[in-house]
C-alpha cells in the first residue's frame, strides 16, 4: 500500500511541477515525472509477492511469474513518452529561438 502512495505522491509532484513552475524546461521535466509515476504504478499493479520476472528460459519452469502484460504495455507507453518529450523539447528550443526566454509569464501573445 505504501508503495502505491509513493507512486501517487510522485504523480502529484509531477503535476505540481507542471502547474506551478514558470520555466518551460521544468514543465517538461514535470511531465516526464508524471509519466514515469503512471508507468511505475502500472508495473506495481502487476507485481505479486515473491514473483519472478516473466522471462521464459530453458532452465526454469513457468511458475510464480508476475503478470507479463503490463510490462509489455509499459514499454509501449515509454516509447510514446519518448516521442512526446522529444517533440516538446523541440518546440521549447524553437520558442527560445523566437522569444529569447524560457519564462512562460513572458510568453503570452495568445490569450485563450
Amino acid at each position, binding site marked *: 500500500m505504501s508503495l502505491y502512495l509513493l507512486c501517487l505522491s510522485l504523480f502529484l509532484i509531477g503535476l505540481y511541477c507542471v502547474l506551478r513552475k514558470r520555466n518551460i524546461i521544468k514543465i517538461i521535466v514535470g511531465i516526464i515525472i508524471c509519466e514515469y509515476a503512471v508507468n511505475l504504478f502500472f508495473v506495481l499493479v502487476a507485481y505479486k509477492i515473491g514473483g519472478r520476472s516473466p522471462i*521464459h528460459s*530453458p532452465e526454469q519452469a513457468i511458475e510464480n511469474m508476475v503478470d507479463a502484460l503490463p510490462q509489455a504495455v509499459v514499454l509501449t507507453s515509454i*516509447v510514446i513518452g519518448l516521442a512526446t518529450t*522529444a517533440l516538446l*523539447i*523541440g518546440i521549447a*528550443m*524553437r520558442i*527560445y529561438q523566437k522569444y529569447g526566454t524560457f519564462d512562460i509569464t513572458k510568453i503570452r501573445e495568445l490569450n485563450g
Partner: protein
Amino acid sequence: MSREHDKGMSVIVKTITRLTVGLIFLYGIHILSHGHVSPGGGFAGGIIVALSFVHLMLAYGKDVALEKLPRGVTSLFEGMGAIIFLSIALIGFTSGYFFINFLAKGEPFRLFSAGIIPLCNIAIGLKVGAGLFAIFVALVLLKFDTESKENKK
C-alpha cells in the same frame, strides 16, 4: 561557440571512443538480434545502436558523425524500418490474417526461431535507431543554428 569545440573533445576521450564505439554498436546488434530469446529486442537494441552514433558525435563533433551517417541516410533508414515492419504485417494477409506469424516457429531458444518476430525486431531496431539519432541530430543542429545567428548579432 568556438571552432575547436566543433571538432570534438580531448585526445583521451577520442581514443577511448575509438576503442569502445564499435563494441557498443555490436552490443546493440546483439540485443537487437536476440530479442526473441532473451530480454531486449528491437527498441532496446535500436537505442543502443543510436547511442553509439551519439557517442561518436559527442567525442568527434558533428562533422565526423554526420559523415558516417548523413541525415538523408538516417531518414531513409527510418522510413525503411517502418515500411519493412508494415510489409511483414501485410504479407500475413497471404496466410489469411493481418500480422499472422506465417514463418515456421522453429525450436525455442535458438537464434532462428519464433517466425516473424526476429524480422520485426530488426525493422523496429532500424526505425528506433535511426529515429533516435535523427532526433538527437535535429535538436543539436537547431542549437547550432541558433548560436550562429546570435554570434552574427
